[in-house]
Each structure stands twice: as structure tokens, then as C-alpha cells.
């Protein structure tokens, strides 16, 4: 389906197929963000079926995400 850059697409639109890679990749950033926001805003949305091959993480490994301080720490000299 050809993307109209001036149209607002809704998840409920009959002609919108969010699994259509060509369609989704042709969306403008604003249109994509808008659709993503709609998908996140639905309180009754079914959770994603997230299965697939794993990354190189081994059983028991952990990923920890640290964000450095914003200057309010009690750093020593």
C-alpha cells in the first residue's frame, strides 16, 4: 500500500497492516511515532508474543543498565 504522507493513519483503519514492512518503513517519522503511540495507549492491547532466537546471553547471565549520575552524587576525591 502506498503511503500518503499527509494522512493520519489509525490502527483501526481497515487498510492499515502494521506487519507490512514496506508500508511501515515508508511511513514518515511522525506517522510511525503516531501509530506506535496508539499501540501503547490501548489499555486492553494484547501483549506481544515475544519469542524467537536468543542473543548470546547464557542462562544466568544478566544485563544491567547503568546511567551515570547527573551531578548530585557524593563523589570522593
Amino acid at each position, binding site marked *: 500500500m502506498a503511503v500518503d504522507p499527509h494522512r493520519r493513519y489509525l490502527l483501526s483503519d481497515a487498510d492499515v497492516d502494521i506487519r507490512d514492512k514496506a508500508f511501515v518503513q515508508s511511513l514518515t517519522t511522525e506517522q510511525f511515532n503516531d501509530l506506535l503511540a496508539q499501540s501503547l*495507549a490501548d489499555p486492553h492491547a494484547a501483549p506481544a508474543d515475544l519469542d524467537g532466537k536468543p542473543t548470546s*546471553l547464557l542462562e544466568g547471565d*544478566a*544485563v544491567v543498565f547503568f*546511567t551515570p*549520575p547527573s551531578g548530585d552524587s557524593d563523589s570522593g576525591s
Partner: protein
Amino acid sequence: MCRDIEHGGRRCDCDTSAARRRRRARAKQRAASDQVTAYIGATPYRPESAAVVSMSARPSYYDSDEWIEYDDYIHDAADRHGVTIVSAQRADGLWLGETEPAGAYTVRADSTAQLHAWAAEVAGRYNQDSVMVSRATARGRGRLATYGAGGVDAEAALSTLRAAGLPGGRVVDGRLQIVSTPDAPLPGAAHALLDARFGHEATDRVSTTFVTKSLDHLRHSPIKDIQRIRQLYCDHHGLPTPRPLPHLTEADDIAAAQFYDQAAHEPTNPRVARSYRVLRQHITQQYNTLIDEGYHFEPWDETAQHTAREREVFAARRRAIAEGKNPNRAEAQVRRRPLPEQPYSDSAAMLADLRKRKHLYYFRTEVSQGTEGALPPDHPMAATVTVHVPLQRYRSGPRKGEPKPGQETTQHLVANDVFRAVHDAIAHSNGFQFGPRGERRAWWTHRNCLPSEARVALWNETRAQNVWTNAGPHMQVRTADGVTRLATIDDPQWVPLTQRPYAEQKCVDAPSWLV
């Protein structure tokens, strides 16, 4: 080749004409930057100022002292909690609408408790409410979804997530990662959109926990009293303002270890001998300064173990009485435990002893020829030095063989004993543990309170020996393309920290770019 490690050591080419040109350019840039700084300070219009700043060629955030200190602390804390960092990658993170540079660490530990204790300590140290820990497990109810095959533009992707109202996500190595938890699942439609836009690459089953901060970091906080003493010492001896530790990489560690490994023991080399002479003079003065400030150092031997045990018994009895329990039973429990072989269970215990009691145990040096682990008599640190005797010891009476009260105010000690005590007190008291990073920082802290003539000797006694242990030939891996790197936990050459060999005690003539 640069002559000064403070310029970056062996990688610095500051003597070349190109480098001189760069220096001149940098000076001009600095002058311009000062003007920009003044401009920012004078105007409230931050966006305009920020735009001006972003045009200058600033080094990466990950080269900043702030990040290096942060990353070092994370690694040090990991060592303390028995957590092995398998990989550490730069990341761009989005959390509650804010995008920030961050770090993504893949780690391994024996237990979840160790992981959580580590994350909690880091969060506490930097006053962050919590840290997200996702542990891969087949029973995990959460999912770590990875999108894109290395080609995701971090800024654009995180802007998209932010604009769409997704609370968190990160881009690591060109891949977008989102954690979906049972409490906050990623909706199917959102996943479909992200998959279509970026490509769904992988999913790990994880158990995700938000670990809240602890106060564990306080056990490793710097001892302010010794910071004050260090500053006074530097001022008194006219030593220059302390310089921050340069960014030393794995390649620097390997280069230093290789040099020490191959260099000859040269105790009579005039440059080496002079450096050791200056080091002995200064550690003697530093020891005396600490003694005069009320600190006392005690060799760790059988007597010390019994003294420590009696102290422990006293504390246990007092605690039992306060809690209304039987003190005899509490004492019996303490006495049943075997006497410890080490004075301190970890660096935090040493810091606590130093902080609360102004006391430190050290291992007495054995000086003898041909005995494994002993210091050879021709080693400059085998010489004796004369130091002050703590006043406190006079009050409690002399030990066997020691001078009687009022007769002597000094004693003779092996220089190596004095050095080990002073180094732990002066340098490790800044909260640096006995792991590779802590030792590196301790070396630099001690280096900052010694004159330049002592640097060769200090390097031999600290940095060289530690870097050989942790980056010596036994830890090096030669890759197929001829590059030498350090073994990681997944390499067969990997040697756990506690099993690495000690370095030979040599005094070598190290060049300036190393010391």
C-alpha cells in the same frame, strides 16, 4: 615518544611537529571555548549556547573523568560482590522521557543476591533510586526484545520511543532493546510496528528486577581525615596539585606488564637507586605524619590474631549484655571460630579498621636470600628506616624487645613494611580496593603525594607488580591478526583474580612514559 605518562604515556606523540601544531590549534580552541563558556554564563538562552558548544570538536562523553570514574566504580564494586563483567558496552538510554549516555553491562554471578547487592551499591553510591537488572533464565516471565541488526540510529530510535510515550529502551551496538515485563508488557501492535520498522532480531527470556539503592558504598567511602593529611603533606613539601588519573586502557596495562616482565633487576642503577632513596625518605615522613596524627600500624602475626580475637570477644559480650542475652554464650560462640589467616576479610574491613580505630595491620616482610616470597637483601626496600613510635604504645607499655617508655621515641623497621602500611593508609584509604582498578587508582593517588624522583620506585612497588599479576603473560591472548589482548572469562587462558601469580619483586629502570 612522550616522556610523561600524564600526557597519555606511550600513545602520546606530543614531540612531533604535527602534535605541536595541534597544541597551538588547541590553545586557540581553548581560548575560543573560554569565550563560549563566558557567553553561556552570561545568557539564560541555553539552547542557543548548547548549539554553539556542540559545534566544537569535543571528546566523547566516555572519555570524560566523570564516566571513567563511574565505570571504574562499577567494575570495582563488581569485584567486591563476586560479579564478573563479561562485556561492557556504551549505550544510549531512554528512561521516563530522558535520553542519556549510559552503559550496558553483561555480567555473570553465582547468585542473584550477589548481582542485586552489586547493583544496589552502585545505585546508592550515585544516589539513583534503582537499577534495572534483567537476568536470562528459561523460567523468566519477562522478555528482552532486540530490534535491528546493528543499524539502528540511536538518536532517531530513542526520539521515536520518547515521542510515542514508551517509558524505556536503549540502543546498544546499533540495536534497539526493550524490556517487556508482566507488569508492563509491550503491546503486540507496538512489537509488530517495531519489527516492521527495525526488524526483530532476538528475544531473551529474562527475570527483571528493579534493584533499589543500598548504603553499602559507605563502607568504601574515602577517609576524609586521611585526605586532609595527604593534602597537608603535599602542601608542606610543595608538591604540585594532584592530577587526575589518565585514561589507561588494556593496551597500556599489557605494555606496562610486558616491560616489567622483560626488564632486568637493577638495584644499583643510579636512577633506580636514587628513586628508591627518595621513596624511602618520603614514606618514612608519611609514616611519621600518620603516627603523629594518632594512627598506629601493627604487623599481622600470631599475637595480632589473639589481640583481634580478644577485641571480638569483648565486643560480642558487650553486645549480648545490651541485648539481654548471655554474654558467656556469646563469648563461646566467638571462640569456637578458627582464628583468621588474614587480618581483613576485604578492603571494606580494612577501611573500617582505619576509619574507626585509626589502626592498620600489615604483613611483616621477610628478608632473606633464596626464600620464595622473601625480599632479597640487595633490594632497596629491604633496608631499614627509622620511624616514630606511636605514643599510645608508651601508655600501654612496651612489648618484649621494644624500648622502655620514655627511653626511645623511634624504632627501626624494614622499609618495605613501612611502605606497605603507608601505601594502604595513604592511598587505599580513598576507598580503593585490592583489585586491578583499585590498585591502579591507589598507585596514582600515592604518586600524587610524592616528588617526581620517587616515581620509578613507586611504579615498581605498586603499578608494575599489580599490572604484571593482572595483565602479565599468563593473562595475555594473541589474536589471529597478531594483536595481544587480555583474556576474558570465556577464554581458556582466563585466570580468576584469586589464582593469579604474584610478580617477582624487582626494581627496574622504568621509562618516564610508564611511571
